[in-house]
């Protein structure tokens, strides 16, 4: 902490901000990637391997082409990241985004201990041994609910990034930021999936589609901001498509998902509350692993009744524009199968709604991108110099 405060007093003199996508950072990430790829422990964690792929030089160069822009950009200075406590890898992506934007970072690590976090920390230490010039740019901290630390870091940072949803944001907002600082917050949000039934029935790989949908939902207990809570059906053959789609998913669930008793009860509570609110019907499924409630109309009110652990509000739409009522500011990701993405974009743009920040193919809702939750992370964490 002391070292950190000292560094910041000179305001960039001692610790210069880096340009966006600097070659220094690029080679650091390349080494980090190589280090993780050869780590035997890391092989057991697909999320670590995915991260290692993300950090490869070739990928970083692709990102640079897309995100560096034409203007002159430098990092804003110091980014303070508050990582979610129950997801292992978010902290790493948040930190790498800041590094690419040219910033130093202080990261509050997840409070829950994940082996993935240990693996990343070990690799970072190892690479930094060869690149001491980057040492002052990287601080990973683990601390409890310590108000003094939050106060100091909030006052110090140029950008604060808060993962972890509404409660965390409210909590952390008690600690004032410096006058020039900005803030990136990831609130509680939800996703929806739109599926064209006719296209689905034509697919020759329904198992793969089920697996993709499973990854988007059950992998995070349907509790992530990008997990679909609504499934909207389009096309002519909706009934047949639905039967097949859910049956494929059910087969997967029976072997790959554990449901706790509280989750089962929670889903029943949600179903009942939904039933008291609007006209709807619980659909027959083999067991409680999958809960589907079909609603007769899509309304804004339904958002209060979404659930997790495999709780889906289903709707048969006549046309894509029917999704408008649920595109509120709480709606983050629209995932699609068999629906033209440009059409979805048109619905979002034409309606002028507040939601729908990401439009991604089914199976890719969890893929990290430098554009996240409506923010371009590189531009939000850097400053552009206007030269006239």
């Amino acid at each position: 902490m002391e070292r950190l405060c000292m560094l910041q007093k000179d305001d960039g003199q001692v610790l210069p901000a880096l340009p966006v996508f600097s070659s220094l950072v690029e080679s650091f990430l390349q080494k980090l990637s190589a280090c993780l790829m050869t780590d035997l422990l890391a092989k057991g964690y697909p999320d670590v391997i995915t991260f290692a792929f993300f950090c490869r030089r070739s990928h970083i160069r692709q990102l640079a082409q897309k995100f560096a822009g034409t203007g002159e950009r430098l990092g804003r200075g110091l980014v303070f990241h508050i990582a979610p406590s129950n997801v292992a890898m978010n902290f790493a992506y948040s930190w790498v985004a800041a590094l690419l934007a040219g910033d130093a970072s202080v990261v509050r690590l997840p409070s829950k201990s994940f082996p993935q976090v240990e693996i990343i920390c070990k690799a970072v230490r190892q690479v930094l041994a060869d690149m001491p010039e980057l040492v002052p740019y990287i601080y990973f901290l683990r601390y409890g609910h310590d108000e003094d630390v939050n106060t100091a870091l909030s006052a110090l940072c140029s950008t604060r990034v808060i993962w972890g949803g509404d409660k965390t944001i409210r909590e952390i907002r008690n600690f004032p930021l410096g006058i020039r600082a900005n803030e990136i917050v990831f609130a509680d949000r939800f996703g929806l999936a739109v599926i064209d039934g006719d296209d689905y029935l034509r697919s020759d790989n329904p198992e793969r589609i089920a697996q993709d949908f499973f990854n988007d939902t059950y992998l995070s207990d349907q509790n992530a901001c990008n997990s679909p809570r609504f499934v909207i059906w389009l096309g002519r053959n909706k009934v047949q498509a639905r039967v097949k789609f859910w049956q494929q998913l059910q087969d997967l669930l029976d072997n790959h998902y554990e449901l706790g008793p509280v989750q089962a009860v929670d889903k029943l509570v949600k179903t009942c509350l939904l039933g008291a609110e609007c006209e709807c019907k619980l659909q027959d499924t083999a067991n409680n692993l999958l809960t589907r409630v079909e609603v007769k109309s899509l309304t804004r009110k339904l958002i209060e009744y979404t659930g997790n652990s495999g709780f889906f509000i289903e709707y048969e739409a006549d046309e894509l524009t029917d999704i408008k009522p649920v595109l509120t500011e709480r709606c983050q990701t629209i995932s699609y199968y068999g629906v033209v993405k440009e059409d979805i974009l048109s619905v979002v743009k034409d309606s002028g709604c507040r939601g729908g920040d990401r439009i991604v193919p089914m199976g890719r809702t969890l893929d990290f991108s430098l554009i996240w939750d409506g923010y371009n992370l590189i531009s939000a964490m850097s400053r552009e110099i206007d030269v006239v």
Partner: protein
Amino acid sequence: MTYEELLSLEPYSLSQVRKNELFVELLGALTEKHRQMSYCYADIIRTLGYDRKEFQTVQDIPFLPVRLFKHLDLMSIPKENIFKMMTSSGTSGQQVSKIYLDKETASWQQKTLAKIVSSFIGTSRLPMIILDCPSVLKNRHSFSARGAGILGFSMFGRKSIYALDDNMDLQYEVVRDFLQEHKGEDILLFGFTFMVWKYFLQAVKDRNLFFDLSNGFLLHGGGWKKLAQESVSNEQFRQELAKICGLKYVHSYYGMVEQTGPICMECEAGHLHVSNCSDIIMRRSRDFSPCDIGEPGIVQVLTPMPQSYPGHSLLTEDEGVLLGVDDCPCGRKGKYFKIMGRLANAELRGCSDTYAVGK
């Protein structure tokens, strides 16, 4: 058979076979009644897929999660017939259950409780020590579960005193004088398990006091959650009371504000029993199918008593295990069981609400 006729029987006389026949009829009719009287209930069970008016077995009766009473005003009577409202004892900030009673259901609650408890302690009213503080009963219009419990069980006592003052301090002199006055008589003690342990027994121990409660009969309930946190088992609870106060008759009960009246009493063999007035089914979380004997599951409670609100078939958030049917060594008929505690709360994955959790 009507509920009143059911009440007139010996409380543990029905075999399970006979009860199944009676209950499917009574509960089926009650489901239909609530469906007609409560739009909200009708909407909910239609959503759950119950359209038929006849049920084959008790297991087919639809059940509501007990938590719904915290979110919805569920009643099957016109507002002007509300005789009183009961609430659960939520800690501050928590939502509480709201249970609406008309005169009939309120009176049946009392009669049911009387029938069950008097089969253990007899029908004469005993001098009673309430192991709680008087302020629990301050608001007479809206009863908390603790208040309702005390009020409900007070009908078995006379000349009741409170063992604790409003600071939860033990009133040693008051209890001592009371016991002196009633020397040689049977004494009824009532309290919530945690209160009994923490504010009565621990105070007696800490202050090196002594009460002779060998003529006492302690009835306690309200959950083991807090005691389990202090790692106190039922056996230890009983042993300590026997050792320190000579208290031999210690019976816990299982009940909830959503089904006040038809409580389940612990028998001499240490098993909880449903009476004629209620039934219990343990269900599997995977598909809500009924568990086998010995297999832990989510507790569902059923009773044909509640006429004013649709609480006749409820899925609780407790975990329990059925120990047997009709064959408890104590001789009581019907199902007997054990409660393990609240359902374990699984930590969800995903990225929401993280920093604040665990504060």
